[in-house]
């Protein structure tokens, strides 16, 4: 599962590997991305270890999605060093399935060689969507489409899975199910995950480490050592959530009576 091959998105590869128990799958050093001269990401530093689940929080427009797009290799107007594994996959907020391809063909799209349908069926089975493999994407519900998009990412057996607010457009119940699914898949696959979200609860629920992005850099880092599966009702959970919300500029409710809920 560990990544051997690092591919620089741009710039020269850095010196030697850092001495660490886990190999690094993402190394970002001095990354700058400017839009019209205004830096959105400003000399950013980031390391992600193999198998680590990292959540990236931040206000809208803080550059977290831009960072994800850079790591996905979709944005190359950058300065600095970015090392990412060759095998990486993205799931976007919108499922972005090709409407003219049946679900299983969408899953196999872009895979090298001529993969068999069984490969897609296995991935769909894993996300619990094998009964819809023959369907057209436009006939899927929001949750189903998002699961198909996850299957399409997982079938690539990525060392790094990039999730760009994948649950943002789902209704509350479907979201809870989808979060559990991602948790399960991550534990089974052991790939590193970078989850971009603006839902603090989701970040604390899933991640080993929560990063808060502000002013183009990682402004705050919070390790989450709660045992899994995590319980939202746990007071430690609530404390972590309140702390992160404060970091994001959302104060705890003023009236103490409201806390009772």
């Amino acid at each position, binding site marked *: 599962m560990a990544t051997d091959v690092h591919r620089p998105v741009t710039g020269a590869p850095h010196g030697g590997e850092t001495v660490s128990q886990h190999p690094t799958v993402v190394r970002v050093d001095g990354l700058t991305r400017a839009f019209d001269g205004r830096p959105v990401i400003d000399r950013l530093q980031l390391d992600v270890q193999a198998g680590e689940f990292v959540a990236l929080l931040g206000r809208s427009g803080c550059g977290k999605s831009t960072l994800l797009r850079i790591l996905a*290799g*979709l944005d190359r107007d950058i300065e600095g060093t970015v090392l990412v594994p060759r095998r990486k996959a*993205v799931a976007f907020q919108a499922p972005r399935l*090709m409407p003219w391809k049946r679900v299983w063909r969408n899953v196999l*799209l872009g895979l090298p060689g001529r993969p068999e349908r069984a490969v897609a069926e296995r991935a769909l089975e894993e996300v619990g969507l094998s009964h819809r493999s023959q369907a057209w994407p436009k006939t899927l519900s929001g949750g189903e489409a998002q699961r198909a998009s996850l299957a399409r990412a997982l079938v690539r057996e990525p060392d790094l899975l990039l999730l760009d607010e994948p649950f943002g457009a789902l209704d509350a119940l479907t979201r809870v199910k989808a979060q559990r699914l991602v948790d399960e898949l991550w534990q089974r696959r052991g790939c590193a995950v970078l989850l971009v979200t603006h839902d603090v609860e989701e970040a604390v629920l899933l991640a080993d480490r929560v990063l808060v992005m502000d002013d183009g850099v990682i402004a705050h880092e919070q390790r989450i050592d709660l045992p899994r599966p995590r319980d939202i009702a746990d007071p430690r959970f609530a404390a972590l959530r309140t702390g992160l919300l404060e970091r994001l500029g959302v104060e705890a409710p003023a009236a103490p009576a409201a806390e009772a809920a």
Partner: protein
Amino acid sequence: MSISHAPPQPVPDISRKGHAESLEPGPGPSPELVALVPSSSRRARVPRWLRRTTGPLLLLGLWQLLSATGALASDVLASPGTIARVAGDLIEDGSLTTAMGVSLQRVAIGLLLGTLVGTGLALVSGLFRIGEDLVDASVQMLRTVPFVGLIPLFIIWFGIGEAPKVAIITLGVSFPLYLNVYAGIRGVDSQLIEAGESLGLSRWGLVRHVILPGALPGAMTGLRYSLGIAWLALVFAEQINADAGIGFLMVQARDFLRTDVIVVCLVVYAFLGLLADFVVRTLERLLLQWRPTFTGR
């Protein structure tokens, strides 16, 4: 929250105007209830095909009636009965089928060439920026020239054989196809292209799996327009210097004041147009089955 603290006595209905009544506690007069009728029982169940054929049949009956009573003279417009008989005669002596064959061939060749030219140019200008700069401006300029007006020029260039007729159809077909395929390519969702990139598709893979299928609905619209224009171009082209084809039959009939033959030819044109539309509809159903469409209520 408010439920548990609700006042014990019923709240007076403030919407009622009469003050004497409104102070009175207790439920007011119950509102009048209206039954919602299921939509299926509201309409008489006449089959759809029957409803759709009634109108044209009535029109045909009226026409026959006017001809029979002499209100419509036969040298103005022949009666449907006469037209049917003449059509039978024309088919029997083979002149109509021969003419149809000739006309169909012209349309087919013109359509084929026009599709190649229109789609080819659209691909060049849709997929490559340099192609757009070179091709699009020229095509947009030429598009404004009414293609029928080029017939005299085409006769000088290509003579009076098949070539100018096919050329006129080709020209007419090319533009709508170009415009719609080009718009279709440029209208492909950039998010899907980005998703394709993130999945590791090559440039050619993107064209094949994302851009071309995405442009297909536009191409189909273009094809429909093109077919309509192809028949129009055929009619224009065949009225000039033709020695075979449906248009030739019509010109001949005009010289002998045979309105019946003219109407037969018009019906044949309409029938061929309908056939072409059916072909495109079938193509759409097969190629665009991924697209859920609104089918009307």
